């Protein structure tokens, strides 16, 4: 059991978007979409006493994720290490979780018509690599690790250096992406991009967005399940051969 977390140091971040491109390329995110993206607060203050900041947005893998409950099929779930994941086999692309996420961290991938988002690069972690965004960050501003592990860099940044969660009195669901920065900058980020209140589906949307696709999905599910099993076998089989 781990409690994975990420820390982004906004005093270091230069907003270069290397993270965005590395992530898009790692996960074959369609052009124009992103699992992580960089936003700019714009300039506040009075000339020449100005302030501005970048904000690196992604899934926060919240302690109490707002996206799990609205998912009608159970596709969105939280694993034992705290990582919020989407099971593509179960996702019907209804988009309720996209609406629910206070951080706008999810999108519907138009190529596969499923929801997609950051999963802390689980596949890379399993291979012993860093998440793509962390490894490529030109400013060395992103850190990943286990908050249960006192030797981890994120443990130090959160519990010793005071990295903060982007929460408000309105929305506090325990995000596990933390930010380091001058107070003025973090406040500017929170003021410019406040987490919004999660939105739950309205009854009228239930039929068109959920039941209908579910019926259609059920028809294809048998075939899909077989395909998944096949690929899984293929992959593990090859791995044994390799190692």
């Amino acid at each position, binding site marked *: 059991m781990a409690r994975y977390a990420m820390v982004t*140091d906004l005093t270091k*971040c*230069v907003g270069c978007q*290397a993270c965005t491109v590395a992530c898009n390329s790692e996960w074959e995110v369609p052009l124009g979409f992103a699992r992580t993206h960089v936003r700019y607060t714009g*300039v506040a203050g009075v000339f020449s006493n100005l302030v501005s900041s970048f904000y690196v947005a992604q899934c926060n893998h919240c302690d109490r994720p707002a996206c799990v409950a609205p998912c009608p099929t159970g596709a969105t779930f939280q694993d034992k290490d705290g990582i919020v994941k989407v099971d593509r086999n179960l996702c019907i692309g209804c988009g309720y979780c996209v609406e629910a996420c206070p951080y706008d961290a999810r999108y519907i991938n138009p190529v596969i018509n499923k929801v997609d988002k950051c999963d802390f690069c689980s596949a890379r972690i399993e*291979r*012993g690599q860093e998440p793509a965004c962390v490894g490529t960050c*030109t400013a060395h501003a992103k850190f990943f690790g286990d908050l249960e592990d006192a030797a981890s860099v994120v443990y130090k940044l959160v519990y010793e250096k005071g990295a903060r969660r982007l929460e408000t009195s309105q929305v506090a669901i325990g995000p596990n992406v933390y930010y380091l920065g001058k107070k003025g900058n973090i406040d500017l980020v929170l003021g410019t991009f406040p987490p919004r209140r999660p939105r739950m589906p309205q009854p009228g949307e239930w039929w068109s967005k959920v039941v209908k696709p579910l019926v259609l999905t059920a028809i294809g599910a048998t075939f899909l399940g077989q395909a998944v099993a096949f690929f899984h076998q293929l992959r593990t089989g090859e791995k044994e051969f390799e190692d």
Partner: protein
Amino acid sequence: MQSKLSRREFFRRSTAAGAAAAVGEATGTGAVHPPGWRGTTRVEQIATNCEMCFWRCGVLAEVADGKVLKLEGNPDHPLTRGRLCARGNAGTGLLYDPDRLKYPLLRTGQRGEGQFRRITWDEALDFLAAHLNDLKSKYGPESVAFFPHGVASEFFHTLMKAFGTPNSAEPAFAQCRGPREVGYALTFGQGLGSPEPVDLEESKLIILIGSHIGENIFTSQVTAFAEALARGAKLIVVDPRFSTAAAKADWWLPIRPGTDIALLLAWVNVLISEESYDRHYIEKYAQGFTELAAHVREFTPEWAEAITELPARQIRETARAMGEAKPAVALHPGRHTTWYGNDTQRARAMAIVTALLGAWGRKGGIFLPTPLKRGTFSLPPFPESKRGRADGAGTRYPLASEEQGVTNGLVEATLTAKPYPIKGWVVYGQNVLESIPQQQKTLEAIQHLELMVVVDVLPVEQVNYADLVLPEATYLERYDAPAIVESAKSPFVATRFPTVEPLYESKPGWWIAKELAKRLGLGAYFPWETPEEHLARSIQPLAVNPDVLHARGAVAFEGRPYIEQRKTEDGPLFPTQSGKIELSSPLLKQLGADPLPRFTPVEDPPLGYFRLLYGRTPVHSFARSQNNAVLDALMAENEVWVNDVAARDLGLGDQQRVILENQDGVRSLPVRVRVTKGIRRDCAYMVHGFGHQSPQLRRAYHRGASDTHLMTRVQVDPLMGGTGMRVNFVRILVA
């Protein structure tokens, strides 16, 4: 050219150690598996070096079935340690750009029309050899000018020298680094080179004058910059614009454009009058201090306040911060430094501040390059040119580099046929219409040519004016001569290797140059058969196993970056005429120039006009990446930054479309306004490289506006021929 190592061996050598170092720390997982899979596909990782810009970051291309699936940073690379910027990560967007040049093309229509006919490589090379020989016999070999750029141009350099022309010039000098190289060489006896040896890692204070690290991304420089700030280094940013770096600064000095020399002189005044300079260092290493002290006596912060519009108090405070942090003060020498035509003198003033702080050759300041030996082939002697250079390097521009040349000097010579006619241009790796200002002049010069050849990857503007277009393979598809980089703390050798076969009929530059040489009867200048052979000889004195270099992409050596580590073989510490740091320059005196930098006012924008400033964005390189689908998705067009108060006076709203019209009535394409508090009222700023005019760049065509297009005026630096480009003014018209 695939690695001869087995995959397993390859991983053992190249990946595991670096990955363990990088991963273990962050994840604490410890277990490291070779990342040999992408989804359900088994991939091979091939090490090479990036060329999305010229910094040469280390790349691992993940390849399956002859296709690059993903680019990763190479954790083994001594400079970048696994990090890659947005552009580096987006390299496949160039490799698989559907608009790439695919076949050799011969012009059929008028110049500029873009009408071509596909021909074979044999036809193309025969055509080119025949025409080059024709120019040689009619006008002499010097009538052919060469416009190269980058490390990849080495083979063409050899070819042009063998052909007999001394006329080669790259924008890296007269449109970019020239003034700083000359200004620092005048002071310390040697320039800086690239990457510039700024010891950000160890600095206690960083000073940026117009440099916008963060928007201008050279991966390792950004890493060092950010790490320094996190470590507590202080930061002074001098910039009329609230840049990314300015937002991180302890002191942001929004200087009136064109007055940097006044600020620098006032800093020198404070350092000397308060005796906070490094007296011991200056006494030991410098000459001309008495003259300098007398020279700056009158240049007080109060004097500078009236000129720079910066408070005298702030000038004094920042100078004191330097005195306290010395010698660990990293005054960044800048990179694009051709601003106002007095740029060599500004670089001199920066060099003098660096010297007074004792920062040259010291930890946290500017470190010293470590010489590396390069293997060479024994070639026949290059023919001597009797007529000398046509671009004025060494003559009209006495301090211009003869190695890098003066591009605008060649354009001028082509236009005027003085000192002699230039009738052929060979362009490789640069876009003469976007990199050299005064496009109209360049276009007119092209009309004087009998032959224009462009070797390029993409159908950029200049391609439409060429008689012959040769499609080059991208950096992911070719071998390039090894980069032997001395100006790194750990100097290194890095090599570009093909990761996949060249697409279409594109060919690597080395092949094109070698084949052309054969047809010109100059084959003896290319006495090697394969790139492997060329590499083995080039790195022979470094005692590096080519297989190891191939597997790792780069190999580093121990450096001697600081004065106390220098050895006799490194040569004199200050290879000036006097053997000392020349605070006052005898050479400039001899040339009739100011031996000590002096502030001379630059022209202010007329009423209703803004000074046009330009710079970079992290997600594009020059004018060469706008057609890349991945980067286009992040930034499809540029914006013009306008101060909020100025915008209100003009009735402009944020994101409104406008047209810029310069002092000569030249208009830009429509461009969106960014209304911001983050820029002074007297200037407008835009990112360079947009507003492409070539319709074959289907994605980038007419997106945003080109700053180069608006540079109808330049102020040429009389010492080195650099084109000062921040002397253009624009007014803003509603589109």
